[in-house]
């Protein structure tokens, strides 16, 4: 027989962090929608699982006036139906609604999704667009990091071996702004993203400022397109040289050919979605 997997059901977040500290090889499990697929494929390498599901401390959404703080164990469904999130962060709501189907959305969690660090995940572009910050906790304490600095490479993150993602904080977006999210898969539901683009474009006096634009499935990690945003900032939309802007965007991504699509398609569609984003700003 294969050696049995150890399973720890922590009594509290503190207890969970002690386990993480004592045993760096322990694998935390949230809703299981990624890890259980690995198990099915025979690819789950874990001798000891730490079950986060019972940790009430990691649940809940707190909508303060200046920011929305989302517990890491919040499911996609909870996210997609929470009134404050719906009002403030529609791009994230769309991402959550397109993450798998209903039965997956009831189990998959935002924190689990970020820890899994797939470059094709649906929520990360929206989180980047909203300038999310993550709280990482361990027995050593708590630290907040910019989500934009979290993904270090393909499936590599800034989370230390003893840390858990505890909360995700999104600042209240500025007043008049375009919130954009679009995911392209082969079919309309239950698709893995081929290209995904999320953007937040505040407009003041007809000029763009603090644009944040992010893409998924076009590089080893989700990408915050800083150069493109820099190019856009301060301009009026009709003045934007779309050819030049697309060229900047295309230089910020590194799409590949794989089972699901081609580099050519991803590059071209990324540019097209970018233009759709510009159109959305213009027609807001």
């Amino acid at each position, binding site marked *: 027989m294969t050696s049995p997997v150890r399973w720890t059901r922590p009594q509290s977040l503190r207890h969970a962090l002690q386990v993480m500290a004592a045993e760096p090889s322990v694998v935390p499990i949230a809703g299981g*929608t990624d890890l259980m697929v690995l*198990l099915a494929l025979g690819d789950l390498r874990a001798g000891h699982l730490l079950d986060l*599901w019972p940790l009430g401390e990691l649940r809940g959404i707190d909508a303060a006036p200046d920011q929305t703080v989302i517990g890491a164990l919040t499911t996609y469904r909870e996210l997609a139906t929470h009134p404050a999130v719906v009002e403030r962060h529609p791009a994230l709501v769309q991402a959550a609604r397109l993450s798998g189907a209903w*039965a997956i959305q009831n189990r998959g969690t935002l924190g689990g999704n970020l820890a899994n660090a797939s470059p094709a995940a649906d929520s990360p572009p929206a989180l980047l667009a909203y300038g999310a910050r993550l709280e990482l906790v361990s027995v050593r304490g708590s630290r907040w990091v910019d989500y934009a600095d979290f993904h270090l490479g393909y499936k590599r993150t800034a989370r230390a071996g003893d840390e858990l993602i505890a909360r995700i904080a999104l600042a209240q977006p500025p007043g008049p702004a375009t919130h954009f999210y679009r995911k392209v898969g082969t079919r*309309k*539901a239950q698709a893995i993203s081929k290209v995904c683009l999320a953007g937040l474009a505040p407009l003041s006096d007809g000029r763009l400022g603090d644009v944040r634009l992010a893409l998924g499935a076009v590089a080893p990690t989700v990408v915050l397109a800083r150069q493109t945003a820099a190019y856009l900032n301060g301009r009026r939309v009709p003045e934007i040289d779309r050819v030049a802007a697309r060229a900047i965007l295309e230089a910020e991504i590194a799409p590949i050919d794989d089972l699901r699509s081609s580099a050519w398609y991803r590059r071209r569609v990324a540019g097209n979605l970018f233009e759709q984003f510009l159109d959305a700003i213009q027609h807001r």
Partner: protein
Amino acid sequence: MIVLDLTINGRLVRVQVAPLTRLLDFLREHQKLTGTKEGCGEGECGACTVLVDGLPVVSCLVPMGQLDGAAVTTVEGLTAVGDPGLQRLQEALLDAGGTQCGICTPGIVVTAHALLDARSRPTLEEIRDALAGNICRCTGYTAIYEAVRRAAEPVP
């Protein structure tokens, strides 16, 4: 092995089980509730959909370790409870032709039941959205849409 207390179709059970056991296998092999089907084993087809604490989940992706204190409802439970809404749903599936080979039907019944719980008169778009995780290869879905709509009609 861990010991869990959970409710299966309204019945409280204490079980000793390996924590990574899939809820699907537990239901089919341990509880002999074979109405829940396995179509893909990776959460894509929806044939293994059951309710956990009232919400549809794919039981192939839920480890038993996470179910202490949970209430699990399968197609057998929905049928046995004699929920009139469900019976209407089943009747409607029969009348509209919403089941053919039947292998996806238990999952469809569970998801549609949850939809009708959440929305008493779902629109076509809501039905199509809710069922998007339940792949049916026979019916082309059309008769299922019709059945869910019929089941939601007020009782005359």
